[in-house]
């Protein structure tokens, strides 16, 4: 087990390195550089040259990559080429915003989704199951910007119950904070829980068809006990994996929600970084996203190994 964890961490670092090269090549291929974007319509050859020199953009690409890598190894994220602020400064507050939003969604959506999935599996084929299936499939098919805009129109613009944006001044009470985050949290909650409900239901139903469950049924074990004791533990692997993927998505993929609710999170920062060709900023965000995936998938794998003795005995 220890060996496996160490191996996975090692592979994780290699993944990060490969991703950083890909990102670097990607930002280099995009037309224009950060100096052109900053000066925009008012760029002249001289001001471009002056700005490029100031930003160190006149060095060859390979040199710039290794300079960045060197800084990264010393945990120095560097300075934003576009604004001149340190990237640490840019990322710090947004990272906590992202974790706050993601954490709230996870805390609410994961338990509800798993329980609904379980219940749907327990009562498969009943009206309850059909309603859950119908709702989750509809939510998965409707794009999140549609749900978000609809919620804002109803709850903020028409009813004035909730703010239209998740704009925070930083001195909010817990109540104000919950109000501000209510709409983004439920929108995201809909999106991620639908997947988890489907996966939990499918996983458990799958196990329910296996011989040892039949054995348990024949023994006369109550249905609830069969599902909670025999089926659930054998489905933990896939469920945890889908939860991990959804959590990683909450960290890196919520740019639409961040835009609609004007919520200053990391995903939007990375898009801004790409738009301004701000290579160190894009890299820093990419590294954070990539590490989140690596860590969460690792945790999911550990959880599934712990829950499944057969996997533990493999070596």
């Amino acid at each position: 087990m220890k060996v496996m964890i160490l191996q996975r961490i090692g592979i994780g670092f290699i993944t990060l390195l490969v991703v950083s090269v890909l990102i670097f090549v990607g930002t280099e291929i995009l037309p224009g550089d950060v100096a052109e974007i900053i000066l925009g319509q008012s760029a002249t050859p001289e001001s471009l040259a002056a700005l490029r020199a100031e930003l160190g953009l006149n060095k060859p690409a390979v040199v710039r990559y290794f300079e960045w890598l060197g800084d990264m190894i010393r945990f120095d994220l560097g300075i934003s080429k576009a604004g001149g602020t340190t990237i640490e400064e840019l990322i710090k507050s947004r990272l906590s915003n992202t974790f706050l939003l993601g954490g709230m969604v996870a805390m609410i959506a994961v338990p509800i989704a798993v329980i609904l999935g379980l219940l749907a599996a327990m009562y498969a084929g009943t009206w309850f199951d059909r309603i859950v299936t119908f709702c989750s499939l509809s939510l998965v098919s409707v794009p999140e910007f549609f749900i978000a805009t609809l919620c804002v129109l109803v709850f903020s613009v028409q009813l004035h119950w909730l703010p239209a944006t998740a704009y925070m001044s930083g001195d909010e009470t817990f109540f104000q904070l919950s109000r501000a985050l209510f709409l983004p949290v439920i929108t995201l909650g809909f999106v991620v829980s639908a997947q988890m409900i489907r996966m939990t239901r499918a996983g458990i139903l799958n196990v329910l068809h296996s011989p040892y469950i039949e054995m348990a049924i024949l023994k006369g074990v109550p249905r609830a006990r069969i599902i909670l004791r025999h089926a659930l533990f054998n489905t933990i692997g896939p469920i945890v994996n889908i939860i991990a993927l959804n959590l990683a998505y909450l960290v890196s993929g919520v740019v639409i929600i961040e835009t609609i609710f004007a919520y200053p999170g990391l995903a939007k920062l990375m898009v801004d970084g790409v738009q301004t060709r701000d290579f160190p900023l894009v890299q820093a965000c990419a590294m954070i996203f990539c590490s989140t995936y690596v860590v969460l998938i690792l945790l999911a794998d550990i959880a599934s190994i712990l829950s499944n003795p057969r996997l533990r005995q493999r070596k």
Partner: protein
Amino acid sequence: MKEQTNSKISSFDVNGEIGYTNLSVGEKKLIKDAMHRGMTRREFVTWLTATGITLASAGSIFSSATTAMAATPKRGGKIKYAASAHGPMDTLDPVILPAGIDYTRARAHYNCLVQFDENLKPHPELAEEFSSNADATEYTFKIRKGVVFHDGSKLTADDVIWSMRRHMGKDSKSVAKPLMASAREWKKVDSHTVKAILRGPDADFATVLGLFQFKIAKKDTTNWQNPPGTGPFTLKEFKPGIRSVHERNKNYWREGPYLDVIEITAITDSVARVNAVLSGDMQLIDAVDPKAVKQIESTPGVHILSYPTGTYIAICMLRDMAPGNNDDFIMAMKLLQRRERIVRSILKNHGTVGNDQPINSIYPDHCDTLPQRKFDPDKAKFHLKKSGITRAEIHVAEVGTGITDTVLMAQSEASKIGLKLDVKRVPTDGYWGSVWMKTPINVVRWFGRPTANMMMSVAYAPDAKWNDTKWKNKRFGELLKESRAVKDPVKRKEMYCEMQTLIHNDSGIIIPAHINVVAGISDKVKGIPNVPLGQLGGHEWPEFAWLEG
């Protein structure tokens, strides 16, 4: 007073309903000044009726003007403002201010030497007096005494000279560098007097210095995260791409500001931005999509602020390559624009009809004798036939409100007269570097400049860096240079009219419309000035806005 104003007032539209709010900027100013001097209703009505306005109209102008001006500013309160774009690029470094949100922040944080009024005339700001020599080649600025930076240090000539020199020289990264090109050097005369020595005559030089990038910062500032300024607000918090918070500067050198706190952020999604003002989360938003105007107008508690500016959208046909080097093709394209329809249905009337030259009626140097070009498919067909061109390609990115729809409209009109216009849609991201001024036909959006000369020097002079149709007209270049030294109004008008006619007829630019600035604003917010230079009154509002109740 009568003599002084009669000529102007006769230009009032005497037909139909008129009130103070739908008068032009200049007319408003005239009335405002008169009323500030204490004119009574009786005097006012006599004054206006003498110029041919009916008694009823004069009365209604008086009442609406008094309501517009009756309220005196109240102190206190907080305004949240959402611009349309921000990001890690946000900065408080005056020389590279990239966008509207930065202009607003800089306005709250710094001062300029001079400040624009609603007619784009420069008035003293940090310079308590400014004057030029007879041929406008030397300008002297007397710096106001007793002005302190936010860190407590005093403003002196050194700070001014340092701030100005940052726009000059080879290593300057200033985005306003070409505007400072007419200055040869900035000299210190004494601790509170500076002199600018120009390369040639420039009657508009002082006006340039009212622009956003010419804010005065403290000498040798290197930390642009919280630089000392002299402006009406001190910086409490500045997080690029998230928000900035500004608090009232208690030691400000003149009356105001009225608000205790302003928070400046951006909501990039235009629907979300409108929702934020509708729900009351924000008190001010700018860049309202014309399609959302109705929604704001029909909601109680908020209204639309919309007024004409010099900003225009345009199609650029490069004159130094095919097909733009063909005069007949150019003319055909100009005649194909359905200008009224563009203003009505694309801009929803939040714009004004353009006449293929950039100097519209907000500029004092606008030429009102130049006939308006009209949609004329028959003439266009004639010119197109003569040119022999049947196919052209145009690159479009939505760099300005309605430009894509305008091009699509032109495409459909072109197909009716036998011209196949291939519309290539490209992303706005990277547009200025890779498409604009490069492909044979593309589009542009220009923000208005404070003077006609500046606008034409930036984008139309034969040697202009941003001559975006590569139009080299020698006569135009000479006129532009000469006009800078002309102070005689009659001669000046003649020259400016000739220049505008030259652009109108010969350049590769099609200007179908000028765009209004359209903002959404809470009814409680008052005192937003009306400088037609950019979003929300030329970004001048932080110092003057106040909250009612």
